[in-house]
């Protein structure tokens, strides 16, 4: 645990799987599926180990790694650490939670990948690459490294969508690449400006330099308020595309519909969360003053997301589209929590990222199982699934219930805490937002009941219920959702320190 390579091992352990896969013959389907799944396990075990050690009081600072990597300038008048990009990994409670989420969902998505029909070799290699990217994003200790890992996920996702997706997969993949490419470009500009002016991209140091008057002297060039404001807005847009915030949400629809369900599990479950994570880490971490000024706007954006997604989900004909808009809607709750600008809101936002990770992964897992059997996810063509596939239908219903915030499941805790936070700062806005709670129930029940209840429709009548392999991830996810819902402290406690620090930054 206290080895200096713990985090590197955690992040790069899927690399072993990629190597092994490279030497596996193309035709050995079973071997490759097993390899793909098994390669996700080391990071899962390591992250769970770290998680429970942390719960028992282990200090995560001991895990930090730091090595010189790229030195941009070597002037005698600059200090040793200026204009150096280090390979540095470190985590706190927040990133630990996200890492556990990512490694867990990766393992489950690997199981769900049994439905992949072709070119398993390339698929699993990219899949594991995607996992490295996701883990790296959350473990990165500086912005450059963060960006590099972010781009790794982008590339891996692009190919995963473009090659293994549905009928319109190329368009979806390009859509994904374009939107996220623009987002990344904006992010890169922000990183470049900060790096050029501060001489470092380490998040901790940056935070110090931006806020501590004593450390401000270390800046290479001053960062005036106007520039800070523009940097913050740029960050908001960059992560707003990833999250997505409403006008930038069109790409996620295509990705949700076209990408293979196992990949969407990771996409909706983890990749969207990078937006939230980035907003918290950089938006609040580096620019708390600007964030405070914008908090009301962010809350409004959250409400817009929530309602807009909900109303649109209400009239979709395809269950995948319903879920896509539901993702938009649920990310609104993250924004609501962040916009609340208090501990409750912050906690709600983080809870929502985790909870939505579980729930959307569960729902897409089920979509994958359904699609495998019925070849459609259109609401009009499905019906009465509860008869032929009671387990699947029941899990679908349970997933919908979790998603609409039924107490005892994780969705409620996050929804409640986020709204609880917003009611403290902006009661009227929050009251409007509660309309979203009703609409969520309306659209989810409409969609799920259409599929599971009613008379059996053709195609669904003879479908077999889920197999044991498929059931395992379903029940693991359900168990996690209920566990967080019943005993939220398991999530709240690791986050406490991180939230407190952020609130200190916000001056609240």
């Amino acid at each position, binding site marked *: 645990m206290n080895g200096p390579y713990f985090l590197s091992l955690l992040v790069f352990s899927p690399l072993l799987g990629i190597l092994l896969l490279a030497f596996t013959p193309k035709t050995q389907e079973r071997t490759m599926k097993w390899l793909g799944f098994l390669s996700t396990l080391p990071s899962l075990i390591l992250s769970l180990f770290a998680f429970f050690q942390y719960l028992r009081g282990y200090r995560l600072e001991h895990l930090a790694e730091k090595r010189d990597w790229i030195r941009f300038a070597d002037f005698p008048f600059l200090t040793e650490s200026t204009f150096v990009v280090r390979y540095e990994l470190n985590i706190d409670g927040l990133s630990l939670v996200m890492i556990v989420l990512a490694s867990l969902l990766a393992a489950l998505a690997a199981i769900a990948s049994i439905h992949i029909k072709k070119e398993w070799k390339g698929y699993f290699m990219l899949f594991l690459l995607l996992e490295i990217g996701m883990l790296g994003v959350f473990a990165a200790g500086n912005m450059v490294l963060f960006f590099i890992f972010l781009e790794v996920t982008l590339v891996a996702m692009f190919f995963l969508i473009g090659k293994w997706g549905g009928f319109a997969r190329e368009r979806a993949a390009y859509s994904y690449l374009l939107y996220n490419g623009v987002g990344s470009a904006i992010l890169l500009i922000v990183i470049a400006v900060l790096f050029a002016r501060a001489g470092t991209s380490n998040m901790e140091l940056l935070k110090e330099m931006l806020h501590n008057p004593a450390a401000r002297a270390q800046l290479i060039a001053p960062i005036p308020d106007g520039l800070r404001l523009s940097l913050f807005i740029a960050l908001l847009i960059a992560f707003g595309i990833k999250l997505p915030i409403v006008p930038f949400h069109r790409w996620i629809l295509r990705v949700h519909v076209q990408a293979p369900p196992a990949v969407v599990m990771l996409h909706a479950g983890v990749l969207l969360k990078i937006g939230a994570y980035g907003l918290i880490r950089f938006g609040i971490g580096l620019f708390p003053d600007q964030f405070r000024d914008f908090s009301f706007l962010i809350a409004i954006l959250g409400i817009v997301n929530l309602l807009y997604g909900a109303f649109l989900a209400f*009239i979709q004909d395809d269950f995948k589209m319903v879920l896509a808009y539901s993702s938009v809607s649920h990310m609104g709750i993250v924004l609501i929590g962040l916009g609340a600008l208090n*501990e409750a809101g912050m906690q709600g936002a983080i809870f929502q990222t985790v909870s939505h990770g579980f729930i959307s992964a569960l729902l897409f897992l089920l979509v994958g199982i359904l699609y495998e059997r019925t070849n459609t996810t259109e609401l009009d063509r499905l019906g009465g699934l*509860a008869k032929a596939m009671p387990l699947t239908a029941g899990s679908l219903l349970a997933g919908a219930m979790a998603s609409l915030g039924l107490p005892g499941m994780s969705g409620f805790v996050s929804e409640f805490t986020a709204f*609880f936070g917003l009611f403290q700062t902006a009661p009227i806005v929050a009251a409007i937002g509660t309309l979203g709670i009703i*609409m969520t129930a309306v659209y989810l029940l409409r969609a799920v009941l259409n599929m599971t209840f009613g*008379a059996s429709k053709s195609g669904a009548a003879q479908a077999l219920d889920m197999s044991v392999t498929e059931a395992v991830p379903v029940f693991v996810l359900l168990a996690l959702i209920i566990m967080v819902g019943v005993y939220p402290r398991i999530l709240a406690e690791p986050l406490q320190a991180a939230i407190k620090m952020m609130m200190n930054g916000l001056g609240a």
Partner: protein
Amino acid sequence: MMEMAWIVPLFPLFSFFLLLLAGKKMKEASAYVGMLATFVSFLVASAVLADRVGGSTYKAEQVWLAIGSAKLTVGFEVTALNAWMLVIVSLVSFLVHMYAKGYMQGDERFSVFYAYLGLFTFAMLGLVISPNLLQTYMFWELVGLGSFLLIGFYFYKEEAKAAAKKAFIMTRVGDVGFFIGMILLFLQVGSFEYSDIFKAVQDGTLSQPMVTLTAILIFVGAVGKSGQFPLHTWLPDAMEGPTPVSALIHAATMVAAGVYLVAALFPLYEASETALLTVAVVGGFTAIFAASIALVQTDIKRVLAYSTVSQLGYMMLALGSGSDVAAIFHLTTHAFFKALLFLAAGSVIHAVGTQDIEKMGGLWRKMPLTAALFLVGALAISGVPLLSGFFSKDEIFAAAWMHGHGVLFWIAVVASFFTAFYMFRLFFLVFGGEERHGAKDVHESPAVMTLPMLVLAVLSVAAGYIHTPWFGTFLGDWLTDGGYAHEKTPSWMMIVAAIVSLLGIFLAWLMYGKRSLARDWLSSRAPLTYNVLLNKYYIDEFYAWTVGYVANAISRLFYYVDRFVIEGIASLITATVNAAASLGSRMQNGQVQTYGAVTFIGLALLVAILAFTGGYL
């Protein structure tokens, strides 16, 4: 025993999990699991009640979630009200479990049914021992889930699907009110605990407008769950569920949760005259409104459903009139006789295979026991003297009168007349007259079904005597810790009540028993009124045309915004890039000199900029 009260809800929960996992294999044995679980719950609950009678309130809790400095707790509390509700819920639940064994015999999802019942019972028991609003809210929603699952039990029926969806969504609308009210209260008081809230109300920490606002918001939740106007439409539709479910959830327990909630928060309501008045008006209006619809319905369960709505209106009226004791009293008696009526109706449906009362008749001879039990229930609900309904209703009349709600009092009296009339209309149509159900072999239900009905019948008769002006107001004294001062009601009131209910019965007998009055008296004379009543005042249609239409319109609007405006802007950007690209490719004319010129112009520009901005130092 009181510190063990938390264990009461766990038995049904255990039954739920057990049946969910192993129900397929247990088949009929599932019933025994469920029955055993609820019976043990009932025993423990009784012990808790016995303990509470002599003791004082017990409360235990622990931190559930810390949000900053605020600590949210979960736990349990045994107050007089809670202990009382525990017993009622577990008792009715046990009886329904028993009854369902006969009723659901042969259903292929038998064990699932029992699992759901277990879940519901767990949630309901959890609800009544919650010490704070948050926990109440959580169980409140879980109760809704149980109700939803059971209404949709016959999932392959389109009606069941629609009803389940409607039930969930309509109650959710109310829940949002509860949600907001709860959070607002916390922000003012700093705690979800009932005791802290009451303290704040007494201290005046809570400003008067805030009290009114939160009280009314929470009442919205109660309106949703208890099927009060205007959120009542789900409750009659909920009758799509199996009949035992209607008895347990949509008559005796869950729908009473709204009443329970208001009663549990009663000090809050007492502090605001406006909130009380709102509760009273909504209750009174619902009472007569639903009763009038029940007059003309032809589905046996729907009649009972509207009757439930109406009776819940009575309870709300009682609360609004400042008498929580009367409300709880009526809740208790209503739980017994309405459960009885539903079970009896279920017995009839089970035998005849239809719910249409036009197709029934003369069952008195075929099912004497069921008929007799139904009669007891009908007499009790009609408020015939000496049965439980008489006493509890009388208490409500008194409360309304003494609180100065003259109009509401008379409305309640008229509703009482309606109640007697529609109940006996039902009775005479179903059990009297000649047989109309064709050749189907109709026989009495098995003992496993009649036994619970018998118990309920006894309770329907006897429950009234725990709180009467004649023998003593035991319930009231106990619920208020001896501080109950029975208001001296005018003696004419009791007589009026008795006469009104007897009049209703008499009229029903004239119309449907003796047939000296034409049955189509109303439909022929006032077809408009009749149609309005038959179509439930067109409330459903109204919602479909307003709320449904608006929601759809907004969705469509957003759809077009999404499809054309946002996507349009995105396309515009890509089109611009494309245009720029094709312009650029036309510049690609293959002429080396052009390339050179462009390159050089660019260089010159850069050099010039550098030079003229002082780039040479």
